[in-house]
């Protein structure tokens, strides 16, 4: 609660925070908020300009773009959240074991993350989701894997320093098991940097999901995913500007909001960044 109060003290992050609440609301209640079915085609209403019936116009199959963007919020933002949380969870545990146990396990894990980090993010995500087969779940998995080394390294560095503290050494001396130490001593001490990193990564993940969708590797039709909508929509840009424009604006706003929130959380939790 205190954190939120601090977050809304800055007018910049305050705006972002309220936008985030709106996005969350829209995502959670999207089936109740769509004026039309986001997937039902109505060819007789195709490519209508924005008006009082269709706020953002209609697409090439006569579907309401406003409804599709709302329904797409759950898909795009939800999947991005899922991918990043999965990545953070798995990465934290792999990383903290790696740092705490050390020896050859640490070597194997760290060299593997080096390999993953050597690939450009998008190329790796593309290769993975193409190999897994185009679907939204596979795209999420691909993003989770691509982001994994960041969390693993972060957690490992933190775990290394924590494992040399007196209280961990004491626990070891008393014969406490490794999993218990990791769970009770290490993980709680590295939560802060992980949360900061997570909040900074969500915007990036939304873009990655949209990029994969744009290239046909994410959500499959008729799922209203933002990237896939732009992929079809940009062919209509010259005559039906509303089709790609509103969808692009949705991605733009969502990513900006998450990035500002991420910045705010970092400033809040990172002792080095504080003024």
């Amino acid at each position, binding site marked *: 609660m205190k954190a939120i109060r601090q977050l809304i003290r800055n007018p910049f992050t305050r705006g972002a925070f309220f936008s985030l609440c709106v996005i969350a609301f829209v995502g959670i209640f999207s089936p109740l908020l769509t004026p039309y079915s986001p997937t039902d085609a109505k060819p007789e209403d195709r490519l209508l300009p924005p008006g009082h019936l269709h706020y953002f116009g209609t697409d090439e199959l006569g579907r309401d773009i406003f409804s599709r963007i709302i329904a797409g919020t759950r898909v795009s933002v939800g999947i991005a959240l899922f991918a990043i949380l999965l990545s953070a969870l798995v990465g934290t545990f792999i990383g903290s074991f790696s740092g705490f146990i050390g020896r050859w396990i640490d070597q194997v894990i760290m060299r593997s993350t080096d390999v993953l980090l050597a690939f450009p993010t998008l190329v790796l995500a593309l290769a993975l989701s193409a190999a897994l087969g185009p679907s939204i779940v596979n795209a999420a998995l691909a993003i989770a894997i691509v982001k994994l080394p960041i969390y693993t390294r972060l957690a490992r560095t933190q775990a290394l320093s924590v494992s040399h503290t007196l209280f961990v050494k004491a626990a070891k001396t008393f014969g406490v098991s490794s999993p218990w130490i990791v769970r009770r001593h290490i993980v709680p001490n590295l939560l802060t940097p992980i949360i900061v990193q997570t909040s900074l990564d969500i915007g990036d993940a939304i873009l990655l999901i949209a990029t994969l969708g744009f290239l*046909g590797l994410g959500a499959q039709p008729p799922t209203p995913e933002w990237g896939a909508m732009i992929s079809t929509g940009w062919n209509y840009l010259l*005559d*039906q500007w509303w089709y790609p424009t509103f969808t*692009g604006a949705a991605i733009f706003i969502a990513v900006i909001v998450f990035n500002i929130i991420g910045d705010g959380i970092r400033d809040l939790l990172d002792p080095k960044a504080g003024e």
Partner: protein
Amino acid sequence: MTQRLRARFSAVSVFAVVGALALGMIASGPANAAISKTTLVVGMSADLDYLDPAATMDNAQWKITYPCYQRLVEYNGASTDVVPGLASAWRISRDHLTYTFTIKSGQKFSDGTAVTAKAVQYTFERLLKVAKGPADNFTAIASVRANGLKTVVFVLNQVSPQFLYTLAGNYGGIVNPATASKAVNGDSGQAYLADHTAGSGAYVLTEWKKGQYLKLEQNKFYGGKKPVLETVLFKIVGDASSQRLQLGKGEIDIAEGITSDQYAAVAKEDGNTVINKPSLTVDIMYINSGKGNAALKNTLVRQAISYALDYQGIMAATQAGNATQMNGPIPDGMWGQDPKGFQYTTNVTKAKALLAQAGVTNLSLDLLYSARKSWWASEAQLIQDNLAKAGITVNLKLTEYATARKMIDAGTFDLCLGTWSPDYADPSMFMNFWFDSGNFGLAGNRSFYSNPAVDKLIRSAASITDQKKRTALYIQAQKIVVEEAAYGYLYQMNYRLALRTDVKGFVYNPMIEQIYNLETMYKA
């Protein structure tokens, strides 16, 4: 930090691209004729692959080869009749089994050698030896023999009413026998002819920069009237919006890649015009009754699918209404069509009843399509939506074109989108290709449909020359294949082409669609 910046940067770039394109449209302004009057620039959406007339069956490649080769007979302007080409005259024996052609004198290949009867013999022997798609049109040839320099005799092993017309197709292009020396590993020069031309037509392919353009220049030895256009550039412009902008600026004279919804706006722009003519090209859905989902073997299920489709909606969404719903496999304008043929209308209740009668529940089908046609993505989504309303789940399988073709050939799909255009004005182009159980796969019967009664009707129709009797047999066969819903008979589309108003003399012939009569076109 850098990562965060990159994320923000990409978000901004989405907007930047949108904005830049919009600005580009505004900035394009009035046209400035950048190209000379003797150069024609055609914008096409994708690069081509192989140009050997004995191997290619794709109209997109034919637009290069057709003006580079000559044929014994040629289509007469926009009509489906043939007139003398390389052959000045021909005689057909009374039993319709021997065709004797006299070669016109003064015709020369692009290397200056004369076109002789030997070259004709070489061309057809080579074509049959290569045995790719084009050879399927010439199965009736028993022998082809040059008799001196000027006379060539074709002997057929069966009566083939369409034989003369197949000679006017792209595969009838006479190839310079000198290319025999280019053969590697006994490929009859296929590798060489894949990216070279060696004909006696008005043009020669002089340059091919992969992924960028193909350049045609005049054949110095061409025996006909010298064309006006000196150079024809086929420029690859992948994106439809760029093609439209380049057309508006006069950077290209013809834009092939304009999408269905853009035509109306393109036609209104200054200096552009759109040709819109009824064609014989049809857009259909293959319903795999042979190798697909077992439920599709049941006629009731196929009928249910045909009743579930929203034909008007599909035509509106994919062709902006520039299409006519089919009533049977043969399009309107082709003889042999059954004018009273049954036409499926959208009736979801009936579709559900038929499915219930067939005892089929929870049917889930894979719909295969590629990005080859710009409208297939919309069409596939509409069909998915239509069939969902009747209780059939459709999984969209967007597949790369080459892979999709292999899958069509092997029959590993349930439903698939396709187009078909006739190469000669004979209903066998539809009936015998689509329904003969000996033609499974890419050869033509892409629904893997098999009905011995239909086989018998269409085979006998293709072996006689009396048009009245043939029509009667084809109509009988049409009634069966429509009743049994062997295909999803969707629509016959209009041919639309966007070009600059100063491009004159283009003649559209539905038999050689996508091909330009470069010999007689000019710019004013």
